Structures are given as structure tokens and as C-alpha cells.
């Protein structure tokens, strides 16, 4: 195959994988079958991304790949080679300061057990960046890709809308 292009990554062997994680270049080794969330958590030690159903339904493992929210459990680590990945660890501007969105979750009780929260934050962070003027319908549609068994979603919607408003005010200031 090498006469045509890159070589086959053999099954059962570990291969180097390198991408940008929250602005830093990171690398590790993965078998082709390793899913991105396992690579993040077990190889890189970035355990902020949670893992729920492992087949794309619950949304807990949602990260941003090249700027768009995506399921880490539906992506192979080797597919992510060369990509830009953002996870919940990249949201806070400093170790002692939360982002506007995270702060709104705290104020409005947008989380209880917190299991689904990292994924939801990554979806909403992308939504608020892309659609700063988004309303409740868009927030709810984005949230339809996530399961939360604690809150009943209403406080999450409230937090998202409050964050959207706060971000709009900062932009205008």
C-alpha cells in the first residue's frame, strides 16, 4: 500500500497519535480500535470528559473537534490525529476562574450530580459562539443530544440563556 500513500496501521499494534488539546500539542499511542474518549482519559489523563453509553446516545462524552461539538465515543483516536480537540478542561480562563457559561451553570443550578455536565458545556459553548443570539428553541434543540437524569433540563436551559445574555452584554460593552 505504501506505493500509493500512507501505510496501514496494523491491528493490535499501538501507533502514535498527535493532536491539539485545548491549545497544546499532545501525543500518545493508540491501537486503531481505541476510541477518542479512552485516549483522552487513559492515555492523556484528561478525565474531564465523561463516558456514559459509549454508543452515541447520551452525549456525556461530547467534546469539540475542529470547533464543532461531537461525540468522543463515535470517533477513533486515530481519526482525530491532526485535529483540534477542545474539552471541558479548556473552558475556564484560569485555574481560579470559571467561564461565563460555567458560572451561569453554578448560579442557576444547571447541574446536580455533574455526570452529563462536561458534554453539555461543550455543546453549549459551541452553540453560544456560533449563535450568540440563540433563543430557547435553539438551546433545547442542542440539548436534545444530551441526557440528564437529575435536573429535568429546565435549569440547564435557564443557565444557557443567562450565559448567552451575559456574553452579548460583554460583547457590546
Amino acid at each position, binding site marked *: 500500500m505504501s506505493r500509493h500513500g500512507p501505510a496501514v496501521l496494523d*491491528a493490535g499494534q499501538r501507533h502514535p497519535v498527535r493532536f491539539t488539546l485545548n491549545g497544546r500539542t499532545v501525543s500518545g499511542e493508540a491501537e486503531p480500535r481505541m476510541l477518542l474518549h479512552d485516549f483522552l482519559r487513559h492515555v492523556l489523563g484528561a478525565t474531564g470528559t465523561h463516558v456514559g453509553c459509549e454508543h452515541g446516545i447520551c452525549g456525556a462524552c461530547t467534546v469539540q473537534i475542529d470547533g464543532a461539538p461531537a461525540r468522543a465515543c*463515535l470517533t477513533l483516536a486515530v481519526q482525530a490525529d491532526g485535529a483540534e480537540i477542545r474539552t471541558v478542561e479548556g473552558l475556564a480562563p484560569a485555574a481560579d476562574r470559571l467561564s461565563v457559561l460555567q458560572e451561569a451553570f453554578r448560579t442557576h443550578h444547571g447541574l446536580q450530580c455533574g455526570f452529563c455536565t462536561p458534554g453539555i458545556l461543550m455543546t453549549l459553548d459551541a452553540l453560544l459562539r456560533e449563535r450568540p443570539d440563540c433563543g430557547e428553541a435553539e438551546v433545547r434543540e442542542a440539548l436534545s443530544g444530551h441526557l440528564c437524569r437529575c435536573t429535568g433540563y429546565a435549569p440547564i436551559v435557564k443557565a444557557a440563556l443567562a450565559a448567552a445574555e451575559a456574553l452579548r452584554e460583554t460583547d457590546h460593552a
Partner: protein
Amino acid sequence: MKPARFAYLRAATTEHALEALHQGGGEARVIAGGQSLVPMLTMRLARPALLVDIMHVAALSRTDDDGARITIGAAVRQRALETRDGLAQRQPLLAMALPWVGHMQTRSRGTVCGSIAHADPSAELPLVLVALGGQVHLLSRRRARRLAAEEFLTGMMVTARAEDELIEAVSVPAIRPGTGYAFREISRRHGDFAIAAFAAVADERGVRLAVGGVAAIPMARVLPTDQALGDALDAFAWDLDARDDLHASARYRRELVRRIGGDVALEALRDQQARAVKEAV
């Protein structure tokens, strides 16, 4: 749940991918966005020896609009098509259906051709392909061929694709003057699998209603638009041979075909009239 072992090849060119599929035979599978295939791997419903990643093949990442047809390459993500400038003007039915495909978190990775290759009976994109009379462009080292949507989709998650063939693209007719479109999906929540989904195209030949989520593949039928519509819908509903499952009974699905199917057919006719008025101005 972890996938079984497989090898992985990031193809650089279409030829490179075709060569790998040719050599791999039934053991090789194409991976594009992976939004249907990765869960199949994780649940070990699919156990290929080799995955051929086509997302870095520049030639497959294009959407072409030649005025008459819109051709969507194998590596075009659903989100890329959904956000394409002027999509609603060039092919309204695609623009209506795309927001219903999976969730925004899967459309960001999933491809249009991948959804059609997967051929889930409740998926929106195969339904739209059938409703519009679209084509699937297949390519292998041996041959290139194009199949009509209804020739390609042969059963529940079964297609006419040979083991060494790659779906190079799918194509649909662009909007034509005097044509109206409508789409509706019934599911428990937005983003859930469709209990039933409907796409209708009204043109000079009448109104063609396609139904997904009921039979093993999306089915289309041209319906009369006079008082015979009710009986025709009833016959269509029975012919789809609906089954009971966890999500809905067969009877409920037949009722959706009669009622919502009829509404969507009439909506396409109204859309046709509204567009005719606009075209006349």
C-alpha cells in the same frame, strides 16, 4: 463495550481507497464520519479487518451544483451541506430534512453518503434520496456505475453495493420551476429515530409521497390529489406492511401514513402553488 481489533488506513486518494477495498474484499470497510459505523464496531455488530478512512481525500470532499443536479461527495459532512449557502433555494427538501438527521453533535461528523450507505429504514437522507429520485454513484477498480435510490436500497440496512465498491457521491435533482416540497417527521423527541417520516414532491406529474420508518426501506408512491387521496393513502398505508416495535404499533404507523402522510402531500401542493406565484412575479 470496545471494538474488536482492526487495522486502519487513512487513504490519501480515491485510487488508494479503491485499491484497499479491492484487496480487502469483504474484510475491508469504508469509514467516513463513523457516526453509524463506530457504534456498530463498539457493539461488535461489524467486525472488519481493515477500516479505510476516506475523510482526507480532497476529491471526495466536494459538493457540485451544475444547475440541474447537486452531487454530494463521499466525504461531505451533513453539517457542511446543512450550512451550505443557498441550499434552501437549490434543493429545499434537503434543507428541510437535514436538521432532523441525528443531533447537531452527530451531524458535525456524519456524512451524507455514510447515512445512505448505512441504509437505516428510519433515516432521513435515504428517504429524501428516494423522494427526489436521486442516484448513488458507485466506484470500484472494476467499474463505475450509478444506481437509482430504489435500486441501491434493497432492504433493512442492506444495499446493492458490492464489497469492493465505494460510494463516491450521491446526486439529487436541483429545484425545478413548478415544483413544491414538504417534509415532516414524527418521533418522541427531536433527534430520536423517526417513528415515521414523510417527504413529498409535487410537480406536473402529481404529488409523490415517500415514507420512511415504516417499511424496511423508504417507499414512494404518486398519489391522486382529488377525493381519491384518502383511499390511495389507505392502500399505501397497508402496502407498507408496518410492524409493531418498542416505539409504536403497526396500527399507529398506518394511521400516521394516512393522516400525516396526507397532510405532507397537501403541504407539498401548497408549496408548489406558493412557488408558482413567486416565479410569476
